[in-house]
């Protein structure tokens, strides 16, 4: 994540005046909802809010860049830097002197997308040995993590370190973070972070997203921009069959028709609802789902863009171009359908670009995944709203003693070492000869490495986002190239970079729209039903939520 974005979003807010009109105040009083009175969330309250301005500045760690290796593909238009070559083990830099730990032992509760590695494996042993402390992982199925998380947080029996992604912070979980986890401000705010140089090199925008309930609580994993959804296509099959990559929603539909051959068990695509929203310039997800129009906040579902996206996606489904298993909602197997050639287009998070490349390299050497360039509704320039600069955090149990928190932060500093360091090589590739071999000068994981070296320690802390897969330089070039091209069209959403907790009473207001989109795109409900649902949303609390956000904007300024 480039730091230009970080500095922009932490600039002092320009106080908005357009919403301070008496009309809004009157509406808020009539609705029985007092306008937000402070700019900070109260600890453990269900009232919600955000933190901004001077108060925020005082919490944020000071930024000190760390330069270890120059990227082979520098950042352009906010893209993440790419690394296509790997330094030999002898040239790797040690960013941490000695062992950071003092023999402590900590439990960690985290999601895992994959088969859990065996306990006490050689990778855990090697890393724990290098850390000088033990981390005992309690990996959970990533796809159902949220269901466990609520129960675990409510039980009070909470691990020392807990990873929570933004998308699992629905309902009251956001408030639970403030109630259950330690304030890291006393250890990291301002210049205190300099004790942990690798943490100090995490971009400020990511830290800003780590302020929960008015305190700095999270250790962020900085995210790549525009990574939450990417439309992938099978470049190998496109080339072979002579398909042209579509440049507009209409071309997409035409191509989908051309590709679909149920008799040969080939359908054009999976569920493309997330892409449809990008094609038609819809704003993002909660709480970044507002745009400003004529001085008024407009929710994503109220925009024409949203209805257009629904209508387009409905056509895609109605045409029979979507794989039947995707119609049946079997989203977990989307990647398998794509890699097996049953679908040629599908959308997913950025992790799958490398994941699919890596997975297919041995099985199907011809396999080539490529990102399709975004386009606008008529094929022109798209409007893409940036994803939050951090969407994954680890939190430390508030019952930990000061020395324990300091030890964990030292471990996190080790784990957050950037590309080109010994620490990064160990965390991401394990031990040479055990988990990876050097082939043509790059580390390549062997079977043991694939089994044991997964994102476990990685979720404790991460350096600035980069695309560093020297084992697949073409993939790095493709992905960085895509980011550089798409970065031109990126814009910040209204509340960009702000960590916002909605009041509890609005927590489930937006939930029905997930089902609604599935129903409308699959033809079970009509666009009229959608419009009715939007009306219900307004009267059921949407208008009051709008006033609440207006107050927030008035107090804190915009993040755009």
């Amino acid at each position, binding site marked *: 994540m480039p730091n230009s974005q970080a500095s922009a979003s932490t600039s002092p807010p320009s106080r908005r005046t357009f919403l301070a009109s008496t009309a809004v105040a009157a509406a808020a009083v009539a609705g029985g909802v007092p306008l937000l009175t402070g700019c900070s969330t109260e600890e453990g309250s269900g009232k919600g809010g955000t933190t901004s301005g001077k108060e925020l500045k005082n919490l944020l760690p000071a930024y000190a860049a760390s330069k270890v290796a120059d990227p082979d593909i520098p950042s352009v238009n906010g893209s993440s830097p790419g690394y296509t070559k790997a330094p030999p083990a002898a040239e790797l830099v040690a960013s941490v002197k000695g062992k950071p730990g003092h023999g402590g032992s900590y439990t960690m509760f985290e999601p895992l997308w994959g088969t859990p590695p065996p306990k006490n494996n050689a990778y855990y042993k090697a890393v724990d040995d290098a850390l000088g402390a033990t981390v005992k992982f309690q990996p959970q199925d990533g796809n159902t993590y949220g269901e466990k998380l609520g129960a675990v947080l409510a039980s009070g029996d909470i691990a020392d370190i807990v990873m929570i992604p933004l998308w699992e912070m629905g309902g009251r979980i956001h408030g639970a973070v403030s109630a259950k986890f330690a304030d890291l401000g006393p250890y990291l705010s301002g210049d205190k972070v300099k004790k942990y140089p690798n943490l100090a090199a995490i971009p400020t925008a990511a830290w800003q997203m780590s302020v929960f309930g008015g305190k700095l609580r999270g250790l962020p994993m900085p995210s790549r921009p525009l990574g939450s959804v990417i439309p992938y296509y099978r470049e190998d099959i496109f080339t072979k069959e002579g398909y042209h990559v579509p440049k507009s929603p209409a071309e997409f539909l035409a191509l989908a028709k051309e590709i679909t051959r149920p008799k040969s*068990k080939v359908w054009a695509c999976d569920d493309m609802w997330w892409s449809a929203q990008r094609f038609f310039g819809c704003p993002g997800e909660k709480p970044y789902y507002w745009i400003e129009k004529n001085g008024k906040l407009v929710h994503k579902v109220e925009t024409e863009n949203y209805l257009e996206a629904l209508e387009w996606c409905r056509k895609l489904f109605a045409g029979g171009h979507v794989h039947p298993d995707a119609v049946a909602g079997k989203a977990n197997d989307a990647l398998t359908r794509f890699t097996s050639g049953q679908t040629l287009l599908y959308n997913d998070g950025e992790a799958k670009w490398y994941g699919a490349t890596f997975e297919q390299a041995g099985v199907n050497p011809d396999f080539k995944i490529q990102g399709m360039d975004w386009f606008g509704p008529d094929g022109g320039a798209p409007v893409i709203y940036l994803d939050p600069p951090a969407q994954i955090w680890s939190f430390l149990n508030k019952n930990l003693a000061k020395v324990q928190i300091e030890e964990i932060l030292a471990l996190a500093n080790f784990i957050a070492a950037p590309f080109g360091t010994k620490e990064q090589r160990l965390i991401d590739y394990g031990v040479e000869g055990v988990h990876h071999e050097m082939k043509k000068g790059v580390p390549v994981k062997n079977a043991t490495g694939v089994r044991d070296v997964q994102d476990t320690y990685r979720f404790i802390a991460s350096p600035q986002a980069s695309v560093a897969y020297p084992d697949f330089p073409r993939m790095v070039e493709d992905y960085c190239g895509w980011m550089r091209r798409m970065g031109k069209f990126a814009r910040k959403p209204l509340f960009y970079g702000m960590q916002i907790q909605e009041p509890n009473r609005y927590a489930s207001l937006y939930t029905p729209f997930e089902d609604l989109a599935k129903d409308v795109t699959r033809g079970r409900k009509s666009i009229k039903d959608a419009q009715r649902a939007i009306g219900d949303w307004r009267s059921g609390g949407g208008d009051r939520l709008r006033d609440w956000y207006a107050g927030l904007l008035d107090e804190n300024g915009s993040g755009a």
Partner: protein
Amino acid sequence: MAEPARGALADRGATPGRDAPPAPGTPPGPGTPTARTGRWHRLRRDRTLLLMVAPAVGLLLLFTYVPLLWTTVAYLDYDPFTQGLWSSPWVGLDNFTLLFEDSRFWDAFANTLSITFIQLVLFFPVPIALALLLNSVLSDKVRGLVQSILYLPHFFSWVLVITIFQQMLGGAGLLAQQLRAHGHEGFDLMTDPGVFKFLITAQLVWKDAGWGVIVFLAALSAVNQDLYEAAAVDGANRRRRMWHVTLPALRPVVALLLVLRVGDSLTVGFEQILLQRDAVGPGASEVFDTYVWWVGIANTDYGIAAAGGLIKGAFSLVLVLIANKVAHMLGEQGVYRK
């Protein structure tokens, strides 16, 4: 379980006979001992049975009655993370009001009732019919084999069952692909909201009908074979023997299971439905249990979810009372008798 407990504690006390030999020294006469000594005496006489039932009662108390205290959550704006049970604000019946105002709740309500009805009609008789068929198979070997095949799907998880159905009947499934290969149109049963309720009943039959046979087979094995012989001697044909001997023998078991089933009927396959919810949408598939799960576990609106759970419990109780009454009217024991 209800049978020996009830028998031991209530009815038999007054009619000591073959089941309960009188304890030595204190012969219980047909006269009327004082209530107190009677109770003490009965406790002493049944102490072994009471001991045997104690663990089950203990578990019932611990896992069913103690958690009942937490139903107060239904009257709170419950936030276990920041406030806990004691300091969450009391909101009276607000959660119930919110629940009744939610159209999704009423969808779930309607779906639950219709699925219950469909399964009662289409699922419940299947194990009985299977049991009768199996009972008429004379070869032990064949019967054992068929039974094993019928039981097997019971041990599959729902994930597996639904995957098998998807692979067979889905739009890219075996049948659809075979049709396409022979120049016909494909079909997709798995995403059709119209047939969903019958689809899940079919899944249930495939998975659990064989397992349900066990109880009925046990009941059938208890039928006195002499009755069949006597009936045959009297000139009753197969059908008559089934009508006059077999079915009457099954009647108490059928009545008991029917009452139990009705009491449990609002629980219509949580996992099975949750896994297929996206295929047909909540309009056709949301039931009480999945609704409560979404509201409570996924959305953390624990208060509303608890209110939903209470409504379901109350409704189930009413159903059990009605079904039991009906069983009594038909001259059967039902689950209990006052």
